[in-house]
């Protein structure tokens, strides 16, 4: 049994799942629009959450929020379920597929057989769509892959019940379409998305998140260098770059997606300032990439001087300033 589901590759898994599921329901949406309406852009440093023995960084909102917010703002109802046992999880999934409903699943990456071994860490917030079942195999549309693939019943169950931080607990979700989404509704959702993103990046309390979080990490780099030495700081920076650029997490990439979102938002809200601000985000993305190159010099062991770490610090401050300016301009748009 197979649902007539169109697989489209995306830069990021949750964007991709959201876009593909909504497109299946007949809504013309693109990845940047889903990302922007869901207020996906973010920065947070989570010192107490150690991932592979280095602190966690994220360049996007909490997993699950992009789908939730995008659907809510477009006025679409959502079903989301977690399970305590693999058996009940499988039963509900099979029922959905019988009802011709493709389903978004949160999974862990470590046991995901079709991923290259180098990328299989214990990371539990990956998203895929299950769109059919043939014999004992589930048909999988993983948005970061170019084509569709499949997983056996055992393999799917294993990744759905991966353990550890952010354990998926078999979580599934899918949208219900109740009415047609009009262009006005889209424009309204876009405004809401921008507004929340401004709030998240500029006014979130505490030092570790938003624009001030970027500066916080920049200062931390110098402290790590003093306390932990070159090698360890290099490891932390490698983590920072991996979280920024690696598949499905692309942080610098997210800035480009957000820039693309503002361009596409212009089709719904005719305000030329959006295009100008979009260019700012392109600059921010470029700066992130330059910073990554500098970091690479450090963790390769090519750059070892104190000045090189200060350089990294300055670059991150620069990024923070550009993003702050861009969001401040967004906050001043009255629409």
């Amino acid at each position, binding site marked *: 049994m197979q649902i007539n589901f169109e697989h489209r*590759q*995306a*830069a990021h898994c949750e964007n991709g799942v959201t876009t593909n599921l909504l497109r299946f329901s007949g809504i013309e949406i693109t990845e*940047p629009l889903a990302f922007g309406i869901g207020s996906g852009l973010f920065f947070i440093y989570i010192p107490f959450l*150690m991932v*592979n*023995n280095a602190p966690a960084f994220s360049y996007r909102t909490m997993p699950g929020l992009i789908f939730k917010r995008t659907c809510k703002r477009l006025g679409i109802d959502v079903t989301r379920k977690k399970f305590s046992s693999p058996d009940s999880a499988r039963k509900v999934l099979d029922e959905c597929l019988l009802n011709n409903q493709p389903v978004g699943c949160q999974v862990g990456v*470590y046991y995901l057989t*079709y*991923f*290259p*071994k*180098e*990328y299989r*860490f*214990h990371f539990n917030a990956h998203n895929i769509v299950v769109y059919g079942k043939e014999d004992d195999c589930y048909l999988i549309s993983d948005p*970061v*892959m*170019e084509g569709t693939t499949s997983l056996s019943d055992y393999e799917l169950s294993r990744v759905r019940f991966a*353990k*550890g*931080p952010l*354990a998926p607990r078999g979580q599934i979700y899918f949208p219900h379409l109740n009415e047609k989404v009009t262009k006005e509704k889209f424009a309204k959702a876009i405004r809401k998305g921008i507004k929340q993103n401004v709030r998240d990046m500029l006014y979130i309390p505490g030092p570790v998140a938003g624009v001030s979080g970027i500066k916080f990490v920049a200062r931390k780099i110098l402290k790590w260098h003093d306390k932990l030495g070159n090698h360890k700081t*290099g*490891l932390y920076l*490698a*983590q920072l*770059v*991996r979280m920024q*650029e*690696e*598949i499905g997490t692309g942080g610098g*990439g997210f800035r*480009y*997606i957000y*820039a*693309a979102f503002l*361009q*596409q938002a212009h089709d719904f809200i005719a305000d030329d300032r959006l295009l100008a601000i979009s260019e700012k985000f*392109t600059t921010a*993305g*470029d700066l992130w*990439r330059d910073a*990554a*190159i500098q*970091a*690479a010099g450090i*963790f*390769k062991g090519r750059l070892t001087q104190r000045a090189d770490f200060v350089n990294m610090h300055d670059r991150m401050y620069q990024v923070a300033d550009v993003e702050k300016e861009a969001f401040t301009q967004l906050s001043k748009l009255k629409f």
Partner: protein
Amino acid sequence: MEKKDIPQDHSALVNYIRELCYAVGEDGNYETANSTGWEVKTTALDVAWKDIETRILDAKDKVLRGEVSPVLFYMELRLMDIKILSAYTGFWQWTIKRHFKPSVFNKLSEAKLKKYAEVFDISLKELKMEHFNADKL
């Protein structure tokens, strides 16, 4: 980043996926294109793996010297930390820390050893390091 500047370097993804990237096209509008990888990312991943390998080798040496039990070695080998191992086995974190002691590990019941073997995806003999061959792993 402009579309023509999207890096096409060699990476571990080469035979699996070409990533999708957003970049500015010639007319100033955003377009998508595929990329085989970026050298900076590949090095970051290499650094992470090198760190993991050192940790595994360290753990192996400690086990061979009899300082810790094989549980630590297999935990590192499977890229886990105590939190994740605790979630998979259902043992408390402090219990697992106790099991790192060879004296405690040697007295573990069959059932507990089986639990570890199952989670690490190995046989009981391998867990007890009777057939230990690190090169094979």
